[in-house]
């Protein structure tokens, strides 16, 4: 399928995708207009889809687009539409909040980086080629079934949480 892509071109595409992911992340954090933020998030998540593509799993890349861009970002945009109109003055960023959130994400970054640093990575003998849906399905239900079940637990908690929140807010408003 990639017959017409030379290795140099693939390498260039990798850096483009990394740039998209990083640029999107910057856009998602810094501009003061909230719609720009969410569009940045969309660019960033599409970049992650590009990374999956680079790693050879077309299926995962498409699922990333379908779920993160198609479902989650659209839901976020929908919530944002209910925010105050754009011609109003945006409230100032409070210094304390900025420092706090920067610190929190710094700690998270350090933790993740430390884990990556400490892990002894065994380079695979050859680049994985078989990332078809069948392989992923088998792996999810055999080797990674605990992770799979955990994810469904998280989703279940989210659903119950959503039901509770709407229920409470409805009772409070009536």
């Amino acid at each position, binding site marked *: 399928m990639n017959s017409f892509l030379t290795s140099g071109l693939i390498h260039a595409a990798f850096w483009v995708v990394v740039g998209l992911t990083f640029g999107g992340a910057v856009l998602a954090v810094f501009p003061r207009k909230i719609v720009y933020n969410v569009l940045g998030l969309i660019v960033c998540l599409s970049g992650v889809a590009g990374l999956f593509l680079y790693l050879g799993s077309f299926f995962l890349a498409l699922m990333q*687009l*379908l779920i993160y861009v198609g479902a989650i970002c659209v839901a976020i945009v929908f919530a944002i539409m209910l925010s105050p109109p754009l011609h109003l003055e945006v409230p100032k960023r409070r210094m304390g909040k900025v420092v706090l959130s920067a610190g929190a994400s710094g700690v998270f970054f350090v933790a993740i980086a430390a884990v990556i640093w400490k892990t002894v990575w065994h380079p695979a003998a050859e680049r994985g080629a078989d990332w078809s849906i069948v392989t992923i399905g088998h792996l999810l239900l055999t080797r990674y079934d605990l992770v799979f079940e955990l994810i469904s637990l998280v989703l279940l908690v989210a659903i119950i949480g959503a039901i509770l929140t709407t229920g409470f807010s409805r009772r409070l408003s009536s």
Partner: protein
Amino acid sequence: MMEAATNTGGDWLRLIVGLIVVLIFSQLNALFLVWLERKVAGHIQLRYGPMEVGPHGLLQTIVDGIKLVGKELITPFKADKKLFVIAPVLVFMPVLIPFLVLPFGPELIIRDMNVGLLLIFAFSTFSVLAILVGGWASNNKYALLGAMRSVAQNVAYEIPLLLSVMSVVLMVHSFKFSELVMAQHRVWFVFLQPVAAIIYFICATAETNRAPFDIPEAESELVAGFHTEYSGMRFGLFFLAEYTNMFIVSAVATSLFMGGWHGPFGWSLGIPGVIWFLAKTYFLLFVLMWFRWTFPRVRFDQLMNFSWKVLIPLSMLNLLVTALVVKFV
């Protein structure tokens, strides 16, 4: 080495030619569909529709298109300029991608990917985002309301759409278009999966924002919905995207439920596959237009209730039954 080089050149050439053909086809298709829509509307309402330019008004939309290109592009003073300009481009870009995988004939697929069906649905969500961006950036209450309705509608109808498609995928065990069509060599899936086919077609009508589900641009209440502030070719791009989207959903319906390039019950009658495919696709497009001029527009709450309370449970049930039948029969 030499062989690899020529092969690379050939692939690039194929890609570029494919892209040009798709671009031209999408324009011609939109021109034809707009004309057809006006003709169908006319005849349903006992009038002729466009008659003046060309035989039976066939050149009317070309003239209209030239007019659109010549018109001034107006950007509202208080709009978000960057996003306002980007939105029409964003809406048109993703509608070209599905042509990569649509099976026009046994040999006429640009790339027969093994996740072809997913590709179409992954990129279809981008046009919703573009509508949102356009509606929000216009800084106009009608545009914003139209955009919000469009999102709510798309979120609601995407779920039964995907579930109904899934039941076909379960039967064939593949997302690959060529295999999905080959499985219907004898019997079309519209006979084996009638519920899924009907749900798919209803949801496709809603996903393309067509009447009776055209509340994002309901003329009688929202002026023109999300594209109220757009003029000239920017408006034209929204229109082009809508008609190309109609073609895509009909083409997907043809290849999933109506046998793709096969004739009914394995009789091809000596007609080439492409003709079968296009004939069925344009028939479905005609049905879409027929819907528009027959059913009155639904109210917003009716729309939401219909999806969440009828279509989603029904499509889940259909999927469950399909899974049980595939497993045990």
